[in-house]
């Protein structure tokens, strides 16, 4: 009876937090104020009660109610201000568990990983790994905890990739997603990736903590979003770390008018411009200069296309063929046979073509290596020797490596090699990233060629993970991706199978998810 007001307040507090996660409007502030007020009331009433108990000498009871009722209400502050700074992994785990009602271990695990990131130790990492591996099947908390452990090792790229991969996981712990979103927002600010953060904010990818909400506001304002200065100040007042984030208010100025692009001075002349007098020395220096620019600078689709066109123009230049024929004759280049006939210029037939083929091969090999490293696609060409060879090399090389990757992945089904669920997830994410990079570079043609093998191995693995390993979320992520790919390439049989698989209800610790 006496606990009833407390329970009502607690309920309102949780409802306010849940409502806040769904909103990014003025309601966000309203729910935040409600949540803060109820938390303050809960703490005040409990502390008053505890003081009374201490006064009458019931101090063990006072201690118990403080631990049971005050600590959960103050958990966000205690976690951020105390446990993370101390690197108190175990305390963060148990206090985190005391807050959540459903699958409380998930939030505990992530809070522990956050505390570990504050002051990493090998013992803390081992303890976290053991806790994580004990939980099956894989869900968003295990992935987030692994990402935070990676961040603790300064492996921010892995942490970022893992947290971004949460979008493919159907199991959703809102508090876990909030922390994942906050880490990603802070990471974007640290990298200066304002556009990325603004895109997250516009898509409302993550439920926002008050800190993430502020950072999103700064990113939106910097990228021309509709966030007023008053709105930003309100967000800042609501967020923690106000002293550290005050500087962000100053840099959150809306962008100025667009500046006309300054033409970039290039050492190589653009190939598109017709040379009024193309001669022996015009097309070749241009091709070599474009090539060197690509080798020594930052490779882009434009610079690659530029180099390919320059090479194709140089290799088709009649002036260079004439020079090569003359020089081959002067040097006495033998084509390997004593009875080699001479062409109409008197040079050994084949010497010119042999030399030009050697140059084309060397140029295409190096351009393919650069394109592969920068994940660039083969430029559209009109059928020159370098353009064709480059397209062939890129297509075959990427397809081969993709197929080898998917085959190795699927072989584990038969070899019986069992990996931890998080390792299965990481391997799948890596394969998918390789597939996406290859498709982005190779276009729809490569996508159509690569899909059948990915589909065969992917469906086998999805079935194995679902039926044998009981990794429902992982299996569902594979099926959903295969369905999206099947739709993109228009494979009707695959669409049928993947639709059935992707529509299966997914059992998670937060209840069954019906996609």
């Amino acid at each position: 009876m006496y606990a009833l007001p407390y329970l009502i307040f607690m309920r309102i507090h949780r409802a306010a937090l849940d409502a806040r996660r769904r909103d990014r409007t003025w309601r966000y502030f309203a729910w935040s104020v409600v949540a803060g007020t109820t938390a303050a009331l809960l703490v005040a009433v409990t502390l008053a009660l505890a003081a009374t108990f201490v006064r009458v000498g019931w101090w063990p009871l006072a201690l118990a109610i403080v631990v049971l009722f005050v600590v959960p209400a103050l958990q966000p502050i205690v976690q951020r201000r105390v446990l993370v700074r101390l690197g108190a992994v175990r305390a963060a785990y148990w206090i985190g568990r005391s807050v959540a009602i459903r699958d409380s271990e998930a939030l505990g695990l992530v809070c522990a990983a956050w505390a570990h990131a504050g002051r990493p130790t090998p013992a803390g990492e081992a303890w976290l790994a053991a806790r994580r591996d004990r939980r099956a099947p894989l869900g968003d908390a295990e992935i987030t905890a692994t990402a935070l452990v990676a961040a603790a090792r300064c492996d921010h790229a892995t942490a970022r990739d893992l947290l971004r991969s949460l979008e493919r996981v159907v199991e959703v712990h809102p508090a876990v997603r909030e922390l994942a979103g906050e880490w990603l927002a802070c990471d974007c600010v640290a990298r200066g990736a304002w556009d990325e953060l603004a895109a997250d904010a516009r898509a409302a990818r993550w439920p926002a903590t008050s800190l993430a909400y502020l950072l999103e506001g700064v990113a939106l304002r910097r990228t021309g979003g509709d966030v007023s200065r008053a709105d930003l100040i309100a967000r800042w007042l609501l967020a923690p770390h106000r002293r550290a984030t005050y500087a962000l208010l100053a840099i959150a100025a809306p962008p100025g008018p667009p500046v006309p692009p300054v033409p970039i001075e290039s050492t190589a002349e653009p190939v598109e411009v017709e040379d009024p007098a193309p001669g022996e020395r015009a097309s070749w220096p241009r091709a070599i200069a474009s090539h060197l620019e690509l080798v020594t600078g930052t490779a882009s689709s434009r610079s690659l296309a530029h180099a390919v066109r320059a090479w194709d123009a140089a290799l088709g230049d009649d002036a260079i063929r004439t020079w090569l024929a003359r020089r081959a004759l002067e040097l006495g280049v033998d084509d390997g046979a004593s009875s080699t006939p001479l062409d109409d210029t008197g040079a050994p037939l084949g010497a010119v073509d042999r030399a030009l083929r050697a140059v084309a091969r060397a140029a295409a090999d190096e351009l393919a290596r650069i394109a592969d490293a920068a994940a660039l696609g083969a430029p559209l060409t009109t059928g020159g020797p370098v353009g064709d060879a480059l397209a062939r090399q890129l297509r075959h090389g990427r397809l081969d490596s993709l197929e080898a990757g998917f085959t190795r992945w699927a072989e584990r089904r038969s070899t019986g090699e069992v990996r931890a669920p998080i390792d299965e997830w990481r391997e799948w994410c890596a394969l998918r990233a390789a597939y996406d990079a290859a498709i982005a570079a190779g276009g729809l043609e490569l996508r159509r060629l690569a899909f059948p093998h990915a589909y065969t191995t992917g469906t086998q693995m999805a079935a194995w993970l679902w039926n044998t390993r009981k990794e429902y979320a992982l299996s569902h992520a594979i099926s959903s991706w295969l369905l999206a790919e099947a739709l993109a390439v228009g494979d009707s049989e695959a669409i049928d199978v993947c639709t059935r698989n992707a529509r299966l209800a997914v059992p998670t610790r937060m209840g069954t998810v019906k996609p």
Partner: protein
Amino acid sequence: MRQLAENPFFVLGLSPDASRLELEREAQKLLGMLELGFAAAKTYQTPLGPRPRTAELVRAAVAALRDPYQRLLAELWARHAPPPREAAPAPEPTSAAPGLSLWPRP
């Protein structure tokens, strides 16, 4: 790019118009200088910047230029390459992105 970085004419430091005799003399001179550890012989200029010169590279260069077809290819690259580049100064270390330490970043 090997065709430029290890072009026999650049390795020997000669123009593509050099005669066979000049090539042989230059190779002998460079081998001698390398044997004696002359600093001037230890690097050669290419359009990709300076490269270390070794006795093996010099021998391979002169051997390649004795073959008419290899010389034809080497001339084709060397004639049309941009002038050799000086070593670029080491880049200034760039400052880290605006560092807000809101989440622990050890």
